[in-house]
């Protein structure tokens, strides 16, 4: 693995990532069933657009694009935090079964004929339940180890998978398409982008002073304690935060896999593992990735839409396998 090359131009990465995010946003706003030119987009943003352009940009595409960005950022930051917590680059909210718990919560609510906020609340409860289950069981006797936590997460995730299949089998046919799309992640469900965006912004502010402690924690809990870190408090804090971020993301857009795995991994190759760089970079790059994936998902086979999770999984599965293949025994 080559050493992080960032030290030569320390200020370059935020500019590059913000530029990428803005470009992805512009692409998302012009693409769709009716394509806008960049000039039309600029006019609409400046307030001189036509009625159609205004509707397309402000009512339809911008809220969805912002929701996609927020969800991606949340998932990537949650993944990066879990990787520090488990000291394992394979950790991810999807792999650990958190998304599965949220999904079963949402599907259960849909099966019961509930809608709107109740589906959201139920998904949130599912994600938290899954987190408690995974971390509680992985605690076992005598404290948890990263390996036990990862295995517990994988097993719990497959348990959720079975329950999801059961719910699908019991569901009336007319509800199935909505459920399936929800399972693979679908930003058409995002009602308003503001709650996830706010959570993402607050998280970045909250994590700002903790970056150096997280760097030390990544070297192992004993080493961190010997260097003055309150390990137990920090570990519980980032574990709760990561669960909250996942729950927020899943309740906004359904279960979108592998973002929390792919984005921190890619960024680590370029920026190194300094959490003070990595976490804000994850927020930006994760957002950009899901934004691009969602744009692809709604244009590839237009007017039909693909679930965005299909695109992220197609990227994530090879990355996960490559990571496993390369990891030391």
């Amino acid at each position, binding site marked *: 693995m080559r*050493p992080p090359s960032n030290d030569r131009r320390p200020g370059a990465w935020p500019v590059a990532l913000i530029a990428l995010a803005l470009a992805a946003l512009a692409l998302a706003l012009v693409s769709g069933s009716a394509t806008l030119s960049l000039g039309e987009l600029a006019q609409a943003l400046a307030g001189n657009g036509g009625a159609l352009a205004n509707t397309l940009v402000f009512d339809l595409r911008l809220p969805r694009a912002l929701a996609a960005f927020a969800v991606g950022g949340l998932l990537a930051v949650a993944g990066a935090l879990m990787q520090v917590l488990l000291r394992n*680059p394979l950790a991810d909210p999807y792999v650990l079964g958190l998304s599965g718990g949220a999904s079963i919560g949402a599907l259960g609510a849909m099966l019961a004929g509930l809608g709107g906020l109740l589906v959201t609340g139920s998904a949130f409860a599912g994600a938290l339940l899954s987190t408690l289950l995974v971390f509680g069981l992985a605690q076992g006797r005598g404290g948890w180890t990263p390996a036990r936590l990862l295995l517990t997460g994988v097993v719990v995730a497959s348990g959720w998978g079975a329950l999801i299949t059961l719910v699908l089998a019991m569901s009336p046919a007319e509800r199935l398409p909505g459920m399936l799309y929800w399972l693979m992640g679908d930003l058409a469900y995002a009602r308003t982008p503001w709650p996830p965006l706010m959570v993402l912004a607050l998280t970045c502010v909250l994590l700002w002073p*903790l970056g150096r402690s997280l*760097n030390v924690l990544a070297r192992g809990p004993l080493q961190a304690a010997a260097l003055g870190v309150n390990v137990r408090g920090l570990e519980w804090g980032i574990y709760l935060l990561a669960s909250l971020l996942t729950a927020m993301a899943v309740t906004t857009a359904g279960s979108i896999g592998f973002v929390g795995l792919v984005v921190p991994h890619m960024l*680590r190759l370029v920026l190194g593992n300094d959490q003070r760089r990595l976490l804000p970079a994850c927020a930006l790059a994760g957002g950009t990735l899901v934004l691009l994936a969602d744009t692809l998902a709604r244009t590839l086979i237009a007017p039909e839409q693909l679930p965005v999770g299909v695109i992220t999984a197609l990227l994530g599965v090879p990355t996960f396998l490559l990571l496993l293949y390369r990891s030391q025994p």
Partner: protein
Amino acid sequence: MSRLAARGLALAIPGRATRPLELEITPGQVWGVLGPNGAGKTTLLHTLAGLHAPRAGGVFLDGEPLGALGRREVARRLGLVFQERMDGFPATVSEAVMMGRHPYLSLFQRENAEDGERVEAALSAFDLAGFEQRLVSSLSGGERQRVALATLHAQDPAVWLLDEPTNHLDLHHQSAAMALLSEQARRGRTVMMCLHDVNLAARWCSHALLLHPGGEAEAGPVDEVLELASLERLYRQPLSAAEIDGAPVFMPRRAGAPDTCDPPDPSRSSHER
């Protein structure tokens, strides 16, 4: 006043009775902790650092109970080099050594030029100049060991605890590391290290602690404690002793060798030196 003290300290080792331990360690002393595998050397070091709760008794740092000090305050006064380390994530050598400065920085502070100078000094003290941008995971075992030692050097605590500091080190770097630790002790630091090599303790330590698996311990100046008979009892291994460069050297006795050997003669050794 003692810098580091253990009062009635019983180590918590599952399924094993341990006897209370009394230790008074003052600035300038270099302690070697010796004992067979599994005697509890690492547990002792972790307990003295406050990372492992004792079964009974307490540890006192500058006269204050360790538990009454915050983790950060302890880390400014006491540092520990672990025997095993995790390198799961990529970090460059200078990033890893800079972590030694963590206890001195507040939440919103970033490392400043002085921290950078301390890291540089630590790197050159352990022959790591030029390694700054190398990834720790790409280094050899001995080089990683030197990164860990340099991190403690950058942390610059009053009490240096080291778990097998010479692991993986070649003879030159072993000797350089021990000389540096002695130098730190001369400057008023307190050093305590677990060693599997009794000869390193004999050559470099001022004091020794023999830790028996049954929980009993002998502590004192090396020339009183490092006796052939006590070491044979400690390791349950017949030993031969000789003297080289003014320090005793102990070797496992070869099967069939004569039962007795010449004990080191202090008067002759000082003359020959």
